[in-house]
């Protein structure tokens, strides 16, 4: 009997990277504690998030048990499906309807881009793996098209923030695949040159956000207000923080979106600089572990995929904390593993599952 349990445990944990899971759960734990405070002690919210966590862990386990080669085979179909869904959204996504059910269907607008977050790096990693060793300018052009198509479609939705993040994930694969520095510098220069053009194509509200970022007093009741209140929350937290559930900014309703995008302000107010440093360290451990896994992977595909997934974790954490602390404009990016929201949690744990799969299968495919 005991033997059986031990065996079962062995099967369950065989592909699980305990270090990665430990760090991730520590961050989620920080998130749940903060969430409890941010929601004025709402058990419903915390248990909702815990349910999502349980579901996410199961998915993570499943993904971790899929060998990277199998993931590679799914790359093309997944990518195609995601693009088709994005096109469908562009064509049929404008029907307005008054019923609640349609509102639920409205969520579908985000689903293709959510899928694309995984599909694009998979696709690019697969592509570079397939043409490993003879990658030329044509392949770079193909990769650029593979990135630009979904980014353009999502930008049109319009969801500029997500489009940029997905573009970044694609860029990471190219970077890790060894994209020449000249091209990178060229892209940078091109980006700087195109900035005025991009500016003229932005929606008014998007421009407004950028202007508000540069000068928060422009919009004291909108995004500027959010940003200012978040800075007050962080700053007034000081070195040791005001203590759990004692943040005045949080509990007097001054912080907007305080359990989703601005949850970090709650954390920083209540746990201070020390808490922030611990959280930064946890993310650093997560990213570091991801990089180690990427480096020790045995195939180019696994390497690129693990590297890109890891860098996306970093990007989300950086963009969110940068936004809350006022060094980046307000864009709707949640803090990974901390912000309230089931969909994001599921995506993130699938990402962890991919990393674990790469780690667990590194020897099986060694050449």
């Amino acid at each position, binding site marked *: 009997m005991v033997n059986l349990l031990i065996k079962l445990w062995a099967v369950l944990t065989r592909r699980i990277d305990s270090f990665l899971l430990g760090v991730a759960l520590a961050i989620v734990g920080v998130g749940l504690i903060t969430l409890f405070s941010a929601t004025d*002690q*709402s*058990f*419903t919210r915390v248990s909702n998030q815990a349910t999502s966590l349980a579901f996410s862990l199961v998915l993570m386990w499943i993904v971790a048990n899929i060998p990277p080669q199998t993931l590679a085979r799914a790359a093309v179909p997944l990518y195609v499906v995601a693009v088709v869904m994005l096109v469908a959204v562009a064509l049929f996504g404008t029907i*307005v309807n*008054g*019923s*609640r059910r*349609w*509102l639920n269907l*409205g*969520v579908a*607008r985000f689903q293709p881009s959510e899928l694309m977050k995984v599909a694009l790096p998979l696709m690019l990693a697969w592509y570079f793996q397939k043409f490993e*060793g003879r990658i*030329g*300018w044509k392949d*770079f052009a193909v990769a650029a098209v593979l990135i630009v198509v979904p980014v353009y479609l999502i930008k049109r939705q319009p969801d500029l923030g997500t489009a940029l993040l997905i573009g970044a994930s694609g860029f990471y694969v190219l*970077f*890790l695949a*060894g*994209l*020449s*520095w000249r091209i990178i510098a060229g892209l940078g220069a091109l980006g700087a040159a195109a900035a005025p053009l991009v500016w003229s194509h932005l*929606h*008014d*509200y998007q421009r407004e956000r950028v202007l508000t970022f540069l000068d928060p007093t422009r919009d004291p*009741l*909108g995004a500027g207000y959010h940003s200012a*209140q978040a*800075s*007050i*929350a*962080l*700053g*007034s*937290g*000081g*070195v040791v923080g005001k203590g759990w559930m004692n943040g*005045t900014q949080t509990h*007097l*309703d*001054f912080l907007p979106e305080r359990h*989703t995008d601005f949850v970090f302000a709650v954390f920083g107010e209540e746990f201070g*600089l020390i808490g922030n440093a611990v959280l*930064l360290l946890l993310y*650093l451990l997560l990213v*570091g572990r991801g*990089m180690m896994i*990427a*480096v020790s992977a045995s195939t*180019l595909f696994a390497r690129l995929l693990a*590297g890109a997934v890891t*860098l996306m974790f*970093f990007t989300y954490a*950086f963009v969110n904390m*940068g936004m809350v*602390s*006022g*060094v980046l404009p307000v864009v709707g990016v949640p803090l990974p593993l901390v912000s309230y929201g089931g969909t994001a949690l599921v995506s993130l744990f699938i990402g962890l599952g991919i990393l674990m799969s790469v780690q667990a299968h590194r020897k099986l495919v060694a*050449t």
Partner: protein
Amino acid sequence: MARRLLFSSHRRGDGGGFDSPELRNAERQLFLFKRRVGIAGVLVLAAFGALFARFFYLQVIQHQHYQTLAETNRIAIVPIVPNRGVITDRNGVVLAQSYSAYTLEIQPSRVRNLEETIDALAAIVEVQPRDRKRFRKLLEESKNFESLPLRTRLSDDEVARFAVNRYRFPGVEIKARLFRQYPLGEVASHVVGYIGRINDRDVVRIEEWDETANYKGSDYIGKVGVELSYERELHGTTGVEQVEVDAGGRAVRTLSRTPPIAGNNLRLSLDIRLQQVAEEAFGARRGGLVAIEPATGDVLAFVSKPGFDPNLFVEGIDAANWELLNESPDKPLLNRPLRGAYPPGSTIKPFLALGALTSGKRTPAQTIHDPGFFQLPGAAHRFNDDKPGGHGSVDMYRSIVVSCDTYYYVLGSETDIDDTWRFMSQLGFGRKTGIDIEGELTGVLPSREWKRQRFADAKYREEHRKWYLGDSISAGIGQGYNAFTPIQLAHAIATVANDGVAFRPHLVKSIRSLRSGEVREVAREPTHTVPLKPEHLAVIKNALVGVNREGTGATAFAKAAYVSAGKTGTAQVFSLKGEKYAASKIDERLRDHALFIAYAPADKPRIALAVLVENGGFGAQAAAPVARKVFDYFLTGENRAGPALPAAAAGGDDESD
């Protein structure tokens, strides 16, 4: 070379190295990959370092400053939702209004056990299972910590009972909120539309208007109909209250208050009694009707049957009702006059005749011989007339009065389709009329260019894109590719009735600002004038009068107290291959659509309309009697006492004009 440029070789020492096969080995690659990861790692460290520096700046260096700010941060800003504008018909009968009522609201974050609390509340006020369902749904969707309604529209008794028990329910409150109500329910539901809770797409819309601040505190937004298209008039300006809060977050006193400005009131051009007469004239049949005042473009009645009760949508429609509406084969949510494109059938004939007169292709007296069919020289196919033996000798007047198909087969075969297109599009066919609700279809007015575009896809071949003489012939009797919306037909007959002076049809007559009392009229000027000769107009108008006096409309208009003009039409839904059409043998939904266009009085038209009865069979039998009832009511006041209006509908708008 290009390759070297893009993925630089290891010789230059910065990664890549795919270009030299002798070096292409796993270790080399791994080394280069490691270097890239190393660079990324350095960037990650730098970025997190920068974040830490920022935190240090905020939390250590600027700590005192922010500490002070947080302590003086005692002023909360509370939005005050404005009252949404009232919608009335042209005579001031209220079609949509807001009223204040009590709701029972729960702040989920302050309640330990929601289920228990709701159970306890159910003992005091009535809580239906569907209230619970809706509440749970709201709970899932809510983002902020707003309080959520469990029950709306509490009775006075319930309010009193809760007040007594209030101490038992921390986090549960009674609040006065504004509700939207449509007193006439289904009547004119497709015109008025409804409001619903703001969803993700609405948020994007609001952001694009740059009105995000103004919708703070608003829960509802127009979704369909006038409620949607005039949303920005109806909404109003949100007020702001600055309140001082104590350490517990409760409001202590109000520091300043900017009152909200109520939304503007809309006066529709509809005559709601006429609307009711028209809707009742349809009975249980499906279809649409648009009645327009030719001299102004005012839409007097706008019917789409069946309709729906807009009140169901306001609080979010429940699944059962939604299924009922959305999956019904009768499509009650389809706005037929606006979004239904139907072949016009014979109602197209007077317009084509007018075109033939204008271009000089026909004179009024020119006759053709109708043997009961039309045949192209050298072709075997016969285009049949409705009347088996034919109408004999037919001039233009008779061609309209008896609706002779052969006359128009011949005309169609002799007229270039692009000339027809040019004339007909001036009357508004194949383009949007510009009516002031969203979602209008353009319909199809065929031309060579249109066909080329329509079959441009690679799966079609060149012969599909070519325009054939046969296409012109079926287009000549309003079949073939022609597809018009009822609003287009009404607009066109109104334009003819008004001697070619066209107005943009509009449902909203005027907009009244409550604050300033200022009234703005909508669309008073004609959009354009179709160049028509008076003598040509006279021929057509005379023939249209003939239709209702001695032709296909005579039965329906027998003994009318006024002189009217009209044209019947029957549009094929189902093409019978050589068989004789027999309504009784065919599935009801494949039966022909009945159409009728008309205006009255003939000499000085006050009303022009288009009627469509889906699967109604012959236009003369199904559609013309509907028009008769509408004209009778509008012109002679028959049934004036007519349908009773609910008491709630009286008053509301004190405009006198």
